[in-house]
């Protein structure tokens, strides 16, 4: 039984973590909000000291009104959606495959999971040069071997290439979580269905898939949060050109390349709102889990 004494001790122990995270969340957030209502172009001489001009919602309107906004939304949706579809579908198949009795299961698991531990800059550069280069890349050899003309992946099929690279990185995550979920499936239920003569497909759709429902939701939500902010993969491959400028990358360019802090901050606020919409759903699921 917790006493008054241990209560206050507990509060004291929690304090550093809570205060730090509160500061980490509030200070930059309030600054971004503040800048988003200001005209702030350091290159043109705007500065803190001389005071910044209040422009109301102008930055918000201009960010959405700019010609690069909708293409960036489209790129974001394509990349996030594409990666989600690929990783979830292949993840389910892989999880089922790895759940089967096979020789060398441990080693195969390691091979499948390995890409997750490769740092984003390395995986992007390895794919860009070693795999997708139109002259020396592995894929170009394969294409030539079959008599086809090699593809300039990152310029001619840039969005698809980014989807491929990012899917490769996140497939292990989806597989691992779905595998963990599959392993908790009661095998007797499956056996009973098998004995009753249920074919493989209906066993999958009526028993395995419903059982995986929660895990799939979690995979989708967590990946969405991370995928909305992929950066290094685009930074070192296309640099945002060829239609791969995502919302994150557009904001990055507004802030860093064109040094329009006000405009970039307004974009940042949009990104924060977007991420929070996804986050609310994730929190509900995680929160329910806490009540157990």
């Amino acid at each position, binding site marked *: 039984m*917790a006493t008054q004494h241990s*209560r206050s*001790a507990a509060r004291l122990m*929690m304090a*550093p*973590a*809570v205060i730090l*995270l509160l500061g980490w*969340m509030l200070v930059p*957030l309030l*600054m*971004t909000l503040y*800048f988003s209502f200001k005209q702030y172009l350091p290159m043109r001489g705007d500065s803190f000291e001389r005071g910044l001009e209040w422009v109301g919602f102008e930055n918000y309107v201009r960010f959405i009104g700019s010609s690069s906004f909708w293409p960036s939304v489209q790129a974001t949706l394509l990349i996030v959606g594409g990666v989600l579809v690929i990783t979830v579908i292949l993840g389910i198949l*892989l999880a089922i*495959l790895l759940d*089967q*009795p096979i020789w060398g*299961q441990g080693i*195969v698991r390691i091979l*499948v999971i*390995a*890409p997750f531990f*490769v*740092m*984003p*800059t*390395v995986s992007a*550069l*390895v794919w860009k*040069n*070693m795999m997708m280069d139109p002259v*020396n890349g*592995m894929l170009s*050899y394969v294409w030539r071997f079959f008599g086809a003309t090699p593809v300039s992946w990152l310029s001619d099929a840039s969005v698809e290439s980014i989807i491929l690279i990012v899917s*490769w990185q996140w497939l292990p995550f989806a597989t*691992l*979580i779905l595998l*963990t979920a599959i392993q908790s499936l009661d095998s007797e239920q499956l*056996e009973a269905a098998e004995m009753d003569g249920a074919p493989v497909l209906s066993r999958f759709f009526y028993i395995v898939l419903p059982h995986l429902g929660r895990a799939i939701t979690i995979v989708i939500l967590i990946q969405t*949060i991370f995928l909305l902010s992929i*950066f290094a993969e685009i*930074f*070192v491959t296309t640099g945002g050109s060829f239609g791969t400028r995502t919302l994150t990358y557009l*904001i*990055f360019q507004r*802030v*860093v390349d064109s040094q329009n802090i006000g405009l970039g901050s307004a974009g*940042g*606020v949009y*990104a*924060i709102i977007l*991420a929070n919409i996804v*986050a609310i759903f*994730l*929190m509900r*699921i*995680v*929160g329910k*889990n806490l*009540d157990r």
Partner: protein
Amino acid sequence: MARAVTTRRKIVTTVVAWAVGLLIFFPIYWTILTSFKTEAQAVANPPLFFGFDFTLENYAIVQERSDYMRYLWNSVIIAGGSTILGILIAVPAAWSMAFVPSKRTKDILLWMLSTKMLPAVGVLYPISLLFVQFDLLDTRGGLIVVLMLINLPIIVWMLYTYFREIPGEILEAARMDGAGLRAEILYVLTPMAIPGIASTILLNVILAWNEAFWTLNLTAVNAAPLTAFIASYSSPEGLFYAKLSAASTMAIAPILVMGWFSQKQLVRGLTFGAVK
């Protein structure tokens, strides 16, 4: 109950699984293999899978030309430092939430998680500005603090889920036997908590090692870790495949090994305990 599986079916699934596994692993395998070739052999057509002159010169060149060890050291300091700092702050917090829960514990945990959802790019300028103000730009100390903060929610959550599995009755029994708070923590809880803390450290080092938004945006020369070092290879000069491969292999090898040990913790840590 194990199902009886015919040998033939096992052979088929084994072959398929291995084929898929090798396909997924191929880019890593190919990078490691290429790092031992000469530059000319690295771009040979058709590609060389064997029969090339095994050489270690790429590793020597990478180290010599770009002072690889300095970036490695920065990665070690930043990943290690942010993890240790995070653990020191998170252990008391997670401990108190697991053993002295209050009505608000759940809300605090969820709120902590929500700070993890803040898109980094949304606060890029404020953080850079603060870094300039406090003279932290391109310093390891600044990065240690930032990476600690972005991973703190995950550390607290992971520790919390581990601590919560320690049965409270053990504490009561210890108290009955006259153990004080200090003895309780030192002799009862710590030994039981060590495996959980170790897994948390492992996962967090991996996350910090691979973090590639803040490390790219807040460093230039002095504090740049391996993520930034590799990014500098994005504009190729002449023949560089073998050297890129050597640099990449060195950057991912330590974490690949650690990652293989932490598969289970990965699921728990990255789903915030929702899947175990």
